[in-house]
C-alpha cells in the first residue's frame, strides 16, 4: 500500500504532527518564562475584586502569526481554492478521469495473473463480508463459492431452486427433479451443456439427456437461456456466469446479494472477480 502517495494522508499526518509540535513548543516557551522571567509592566487604574491588569504590548510572535494566518487565508481564497473558480465536483471529475486513463493504459489487456490479483482484491472488500475470506459462505450465510461451478452445486440448485437473478422467465422453483434424476441432469449439464469436463457419474449422462426437457422449457434445448430469457447454462462454471450474477444480484439466505451494475465496479473488475470466484472451486 502506498499510504504516503496520497496527499490527503500526507497532509493529515503532517497536520497531526504540527498540532503536537507547535503546542508543545509554544507552551514550553511560556513555561520557561514562568521559571525564569519576571512579570512587569504598568498597571491600569482599574482593579476588579483584587485583579489588576498590565498595559503591556501585544506579544510580537502572536501578532506576526496572526498576520501570517490572514495571508494564508488570502492565498487559500485567491489561489488555493479560488472562490469563483474552484468546484469540488470538478475536482472529483478530474480525479476519476485521471484514474480511469491510468487504469485503462495500465490494464487494457490484463494477463491472467493480473486478473486473478485484481479479482482477489475486489473479492476481499466486496464479497468476503458475506461469502467469507475463503469463499465458503460462512456456514450457509451466503453461497459456498468453493463448490460453486461443480457438479454437486448443480444438484444443489436443482433441489433448492434459484431466485433473484431477475430474468424474464422468472424464478426457478425448488425440487423440479429429485434424487438420481437431479444427479443425472447435473451430469448431462457438466458434460454436454456447460462442457466443464468429465462428469463424476458418466453412466447417468444419458439419463440426464432424456430428462433435459424439464430444463429446456426455460433454458432452451442447448441451454443458452433462449436469447436472454433465462440464464445461459452454457456459461455455468465460467467467469462470465459470475459477471452475470454481479450485474443482476441474487437472492440468498440472509438477503438479496446486491447488484454491482451501478458503476462501483468496472467491466474489467467484474471479469476479474469472475475469474477469481471461478478459481475458488478448482
Amino acid at each position, binding site marked *: 500500500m502506498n499510504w504516503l502517495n496520497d496527499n490527503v494522508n500526507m497532509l493529515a499526518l503532517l497536520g497531526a504532527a504540527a498540532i503536537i509540535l507547535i503546542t508543545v513548543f509554544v507552551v514550553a516557551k511560556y513555561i520557561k518564562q514562568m521559571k525564569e522571567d519576571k512579570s512587569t509592566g504598568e498597571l491600569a487604574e482599574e482593579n476588579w475584586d483584587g485583579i489588576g491588569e498590565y498595559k503591556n504590548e501585544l506579544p510580537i510572535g502572536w501578532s506576526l502569526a496572526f498576520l501570517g494566518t490572514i495571508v494564508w487565508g488570502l492565498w487559500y481564497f485567491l489561489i488555493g481554492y479560488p472562490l469563483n473558480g474552484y468546484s469540488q465536483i470538478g475536482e*472529483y471529475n478530474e480525479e*476519476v478521469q485521471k484514474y480511469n486513463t491510468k487504469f485503462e493504459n495500465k490494464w487494457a489487456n490484463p494477463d491472467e495473473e493480473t486478473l486473478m490479483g485484481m479479482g482477489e482484491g475486489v473479492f476481499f472488500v466486496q464479497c468476503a*463480508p*458475506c461469502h467469507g475470506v475463503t469463499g465458503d459462505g460462512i456456514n450457509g*450465510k451466503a453461497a459456498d463459492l468453493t463448490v460453486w461451478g461443480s457438479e454437486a452445486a448443480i444438484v444443489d440448485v436443482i433441489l433448492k431452486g434459484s431466485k433473484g437473478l431477475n430474468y424474464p422467465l422468472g424464478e426457478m422453483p425448488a425440487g423440479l427433479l429429485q434424487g438420481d434424476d437431479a444427479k443425472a441432469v447435473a451430469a448431462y449439464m457438466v458434460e454436454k451443456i456447460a462442457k466443464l469436463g468429465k462428469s463424476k457419474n458418466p453412466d447417468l449422462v444419458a439419463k440426464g439427456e432424456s430428462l433435459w426437457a424439464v430444463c429446456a422449457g426455460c433454458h432452451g434445448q442447448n441451454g443458452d437461456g433462449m436469447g436472454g430469457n433465462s440464464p445461459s447454462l452454457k456459461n455455468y462454471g465460467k467467469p462470465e456466469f459470475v459477471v452475470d450474477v454481479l450485474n443482476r444480484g441474487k437472492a440468498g439466505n*440472509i*438477503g*438479496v446479494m446486491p447488484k454491482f451494475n*451501478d*458503476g462501483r465496479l468496472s467491466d474489467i473488475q467484474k471479469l476479474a472477480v469472475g475469474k477469481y470466484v471461478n478459481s475458488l472451486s478448482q
Partner: protein
Amino acid sequence: MFHWLERNPFFFAVGVFIVIAYAGIVTILPDFMNSARPVVGTKPYTVLQLAGRHVYIKDSCNACHSQLIRPFKSETDRYGMYSLSGEYAYDRPFLWGSKRTGPDLMRVGNYRTTDWHENHMLNPAEIVPGSIMPKYPHMFKNVADIETAYAEALTVKKVFNVPYDKSGMPKLGTLEEAKAQALKEAEEIVANMKSPEVKEALKRGEIKEIVAIIAYLNSLK
C-alpha cells in the same frame, strides 16, 4: 474607543451582537433558494416511509450512520454516486450525520433488501461478523406511528408546498386514505419478511416499526 464601550453595557452588547450576527447572514442567505430546489425525479416520502424516518430518528441511527457521499473516488466506489443538494430537498430534518461508526446509508436502497434488513436488525453481528451495531428487537414490537407521519406530511404540504397529491408524486389524501395506502405499502414489504409476529400484526392492521424503517431504508437510492 473600546474602553468607552466597556463602560456602556448597552452599546457593548449591541456591538457584540452585530459582530456575531452578520456572518450567518452572509453565509446562509445568498444560496438559500438555490439549495432548496429538488433534483428532477426526487419525490417526497410516502407516509409509511416518513414513519420509518421517524423510527430512524427516534433510535438516532444518524449518530453512527451518515447519509452524505462525498465526491471522492474512494467514496463513490464504496457507496455509489456522490450526493447532490437537490436530492435532499424534502429532508426535514437533514440526516447527514457527523460520524461513520457504520457505513453511509445514502443509497442503501440500491444494495440492501427487506429480508437482509430484517435479519440484520435482529442480530447484526450474525450477518456481518465483527459488527458493533446494537440489536433492535424492539422494532419488531413497537407499532409505527402512521398518524404523526401523516400529520407531518400534511404540514409540509400546507406550509412548504411540498408537492404531495401532484401528478407523479405520492398521494396523501385524507388520514383514512393515507392509512390504507400505508397498509398497502406495508403488505408489499411484509411479503418479503419472515417474522410471524410482524405478519400477524399486519393482519390486525398494525404496522410495526421494523416495517416502516425498512420502507424508509429501501427508499434511499
